[in-house]
């Protein structure tokens, strides 16, 4: 009965990924949403290449933030409704692992597709090829932090309106937005962008323990 943390992690990971892949809408929706939002900017602002490539960092980041918020509700709500979450809390000793795995899964089904779609977005917004690498790096760090924040927002607004969790999470995502766009626009103007990446990495490193623990606390509020 002495299951280790890693086997718990792989059990939850396998189960949730299986559920996600059975229902293709979970990972397709953020992807399509991201691309639709990206397409709207050239339509609204005009197709000039110079304008679009200078706006690309902001456009890609705004679309990425909104798309990763789209799937926040799915992090805990299904498991909460059918009682799986109760089961996990009863049987799983460090509930931290549960939250961490859930965040990981959310990133795998929203962050990763967005990451792939951002390459397409970069091409259609005329982003120079040299800026693709910083864009991908900043998106990896930024969308992971967004998944962490999203889990907290989802836990706090569990069983309530979806828009509430967006309002809770969005103000807190501003540093990510600023850092992420700074990374891409510094690379556009041939400046050093590693400093911004390091800060994003630091935020992620602090965020994983702190936000996961606070999310556990927020989830436990529903079991009093």
């Amino acid at each position: 009965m002495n299951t280790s943390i890693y086997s718990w992690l792989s059990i939850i990971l396998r189960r949730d990924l299986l559920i996600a892949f059975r229902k293709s809408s979970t990972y397709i929706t953020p992807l399509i949403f991201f691309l639709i939002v990206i397409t709207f900017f050239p339509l609204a602002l005009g197709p000039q290449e110079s304008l679009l490539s200078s706006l690309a960092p902001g456009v890609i980041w705004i679309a990425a933030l909104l798309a990763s918020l789209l799937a926040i509700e799915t992090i805990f709500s299904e498991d909460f409704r059918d009682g799986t979450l109760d089961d996990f809390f009863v049987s799983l000793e460090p509930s931290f692992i549960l939250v961490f795995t859930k965040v990981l899964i959310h990133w795998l089904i929203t962050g990763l597709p967005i990451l792939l779609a951002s390459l397409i977005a970069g091409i259609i917004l005329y982003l120079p090829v040299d800026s693709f690498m910083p864009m991908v790096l900043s998106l990896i760090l930024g969308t992971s932090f967004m998944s962490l924040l999203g889990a907290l927002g989802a836990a706090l607004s569990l069983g309530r309106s979806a828009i509430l969790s967006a309002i809770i999470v969005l103000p807190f995502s501003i540093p990510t937005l600023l850092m992420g766009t700074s990374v891409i626009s510094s690379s556009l103007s041939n400046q050093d962008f590693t400093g911004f990446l390091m800060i994003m990495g630091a935020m992620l490193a602090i965020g994983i323990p702190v936000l996961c623990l606070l999310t556990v606390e927020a989830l436990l509020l529903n079991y009093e």
Partner: protein
Amino acid sequence: MNKSWNKLKRWFIEMGSPPLFYRWSSKIIPWLGLFALIFLSLGFYWGIFVAPMDYKQGDVYRIIYIHVPSAILSESIFIFMAICGFINVIWRAKISGMMLKSAASIGISFTLLVLVTGSVWGKPTWGTWWVWDARLTSTLILFFIYAALIGLHSTIEDKTRADRAVSILAIVGVAIIPVIKKSVDWWQTLHQPSTFTITSSPSMSPDMYLPLLVCLIGFYLFFAYMLTLNLRNEVIERESSKNWVKQAIDLESK
């Protein structure tokens, strides 16, 4: 040493019990109100009629006596709320959750006041209502965070649970606000939009900042006064089914 420490701890916990708090707060409320009134009227009179005119801005600068104290309060109330949230999450002290909730509405009012007085001040001096300056932007974000806290509290029916949820969010908020400030700073230096800054005001002469100090103390007292009033309302509302509330109200109506 240990004994007196325990005594102090017990006294502190007892002061926080709703009936006891209700009783002792009724005694300090008139004093808080009186001192707030004295300090505020002294500060405003001094600032508006006695303090010298600014050689560059004229009389317009006198809005500083509202603007700066409320800016300081909007941030220190948030820190106060985060401390309350910390106590609430760790020790489950009910009164600290109520305190957090009562402070939030005062905090958002002060933040709104900063934004409004700031743009009223900005129009004659900079020629525009709004600039994407680092400080203005981070104050706006602070306003959104306050709104998120209040919005979250109002959607959860069970009040003690709502308090705890908001406490968690306030802790995250107080950790992330310095990050926001710093990142807005960098963002601004990267874009370099505006040539004017608020920080460039010359070091003030004492006859200008002394009234400011008096106003600041007045604002803090006013906050304490409003907080106590709000908190008493909150206590009465939450404990309305308890016996002591009925007795207290009977006693007051006599």
